[in-house]
């Protein structure tokens, strides 16, 4: 009996010690690890994300962020299938995905303006978009943001499909343009024109964003995550927007942070810095991250007329501003 009492006392003492341990210092909750498909290779254009990580904004929200530089469509599929909670994707991808019943929603419009443009070298007789009639225009694909941007611009100027010789050139627009194989090319306004400028070439540029408002890149989320873990979505958006705000206020500092993430930045520093400066302009807006319903309607209409979308989708489910701070 005495022996049994002794055991009881030892166990009781151990239990009390353990309880004391918990009450004295509550352990830090384990951060939620999130793998984020970026849709492109490591690049200065992801500066707000790198800034948000380096300044600890994600850590403050209990999130450990892992960058996954996989293709955009793969990211959308992974989010749609519930494998991952979030990804970076453009609005047109969300519309296409929803048309195929993927439950994805844009919760932050990172780009406030659509960054696609058409460029032509000076001296080609192309001074206005209407001058593109009868010319050969190089385009990366006949789907995706470039094509949607082209269709929107052409439509604004009354250019029909047969008015222009559209040639799919992949992502070799500059080589084709400078070699004279095409008269103009559909490009990303924050990238190829910067390279042309760096190469000392004079060119004319027609910005899609000056003609019509379309949706571009943003953060997409799985619908189930938004229903079951809305706080995680809010925390994720909050952390990103802080990184975005800091990048807009201090591009120089953001560029320095990019050095840790983008390999070979030193070799091409001037061009990369110019790309970041050009891209920043497309992120600015009255309310950072806010989705514009009209831009979504415009994008959907362009996609319908381009026959990328067979039937209209319920746009109210394609985006929401509910998770913005």
């Amino acid at each position: 009996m005495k022996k049994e009492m002794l055991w009881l006392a030892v166990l009781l003492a151990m239990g009390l010690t353990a309880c004391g341990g918990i009450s004295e210092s509550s352990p830090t909750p384990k951060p939620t690890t999130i793998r984020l498909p970026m849709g492109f290779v490591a690049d200065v254009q992801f500066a707000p994300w790198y800034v948000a990580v380096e300044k600890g904004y994600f850590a403050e929200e209990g999130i450990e962020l892992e960058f996954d530089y996989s293709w955009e469509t793969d990211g959308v599929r992974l989010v749609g299938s519930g494998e991952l909670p979030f990804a970076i994707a453009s609005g047109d991808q969300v519309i296409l995905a929803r048309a195929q019943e993927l439950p994805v929603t844009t919760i932050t419009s990172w780009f406030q303006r659509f960054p696609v443009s058409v460029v032509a070298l000076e001296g080609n007789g192309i001074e206005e978009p209407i001058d593109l009639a009868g010319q050969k225009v190089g385009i990366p694909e006949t789907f995706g943001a470039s094509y949607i941007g082209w269709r929107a611009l052409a439509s604004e100027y009354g250019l029909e499909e047969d008015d222009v010789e559209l040639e799919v050139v992949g992502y070799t627009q500059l080589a084709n343009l400078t070699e004279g194989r095409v008269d103009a090319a559909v490009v990303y306004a924050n990238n190829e024109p910067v390279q042309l400028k760096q190469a000392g070439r004079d060119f004319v540029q027609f910005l899609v964003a000056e003609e019509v408002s379309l949706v571009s890149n943003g953060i997409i989320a799985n619908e189930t995550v938004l229903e079951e873990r809305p706080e995680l979505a809010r925390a994720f958006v909050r952390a990103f927007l802080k990184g975005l705000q800091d990048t807009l206020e201090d591009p120089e500092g953001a560029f320095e942070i990019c050095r840790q993430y983008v390999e070979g930045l030193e070799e091409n520093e001037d061009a990369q810095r110019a790309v970041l400066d050009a891209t920043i302009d497309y992120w600015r807006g009255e309310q950072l991250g806010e989705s514009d319903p009209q831009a979504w309607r415009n994008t959907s209409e362009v996609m319908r007329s381009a026959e990328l979308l067979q039937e209209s989708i319920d746009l109210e489910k394609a985006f929401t501003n509910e998770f913005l701070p």
Partner: protein
Amino acid sequence: MSRRHLSRIGLAVLSLSVFLLLWQGVVSLGGYPTFILPSPRAVVERLGSLLMSGALWRHVQVTLKEILGGLALGTFVATLLGYLLAHSPVAERLLAPYIVASQSVPTVAIAPLLVIWFGTGLLSKVLVCALIVFFPILVNTVVGVRSVSRDLRDLMRTLQASRWQMIWMLEVPAALPTLLGGLKVGATLAVIGAVVGEFVASDRGVGYLLKQGQQLYDTPLVFVGIGTLVVMAQILYGTVALAERLLLRWQD
């Protein structure tokens, strides 16, 4: 039709039916949405719509043109060079390191460069196909030509055969089995080459269909594209195998 032939067809139908049933079973039991794993029915319906509109045939024609062009060019250059390497140790020592090194470069890395250098049309795709079929045919040509026995060469020389007679009457027949083996591998690889070329820049072809399916989240279209490529590769392989049987009848 012989009984043996009928039983072979029966086995093929049976294995296809089991495969389709298993596929349907996985889709039904797993409850997968179409964008992850479409049912056989969804794929057949997509195939039907592409066949009815004539779109599939249009795309197949484009890819076939690229494959045949690449196969012809790759075979021509590889056979000529293979013959030279088989006979000239100096040429082999000079060129072999570069040829082997070229095989360590993935075609997907070269394809965008070919598009920049030769444009986005048929030529760049034909060149991608030619590059991919080049090596197996070259290696088999070298092996085939070198497999001709010294005794037979000596015999031809004794009979005072000319250079051309030596080639047509001895080396070509002797090297043909190995060469056709290389061509069988090359024919299937050429399909991959065409798709790689179309992935870089195209607005037509089966590779384009695949890309379109991926971009538009149209997974049944991706399945149709993959199935079409498999059938094309099988037909090309079968054609070379048939040619092999016809050309090598003398061996029986």
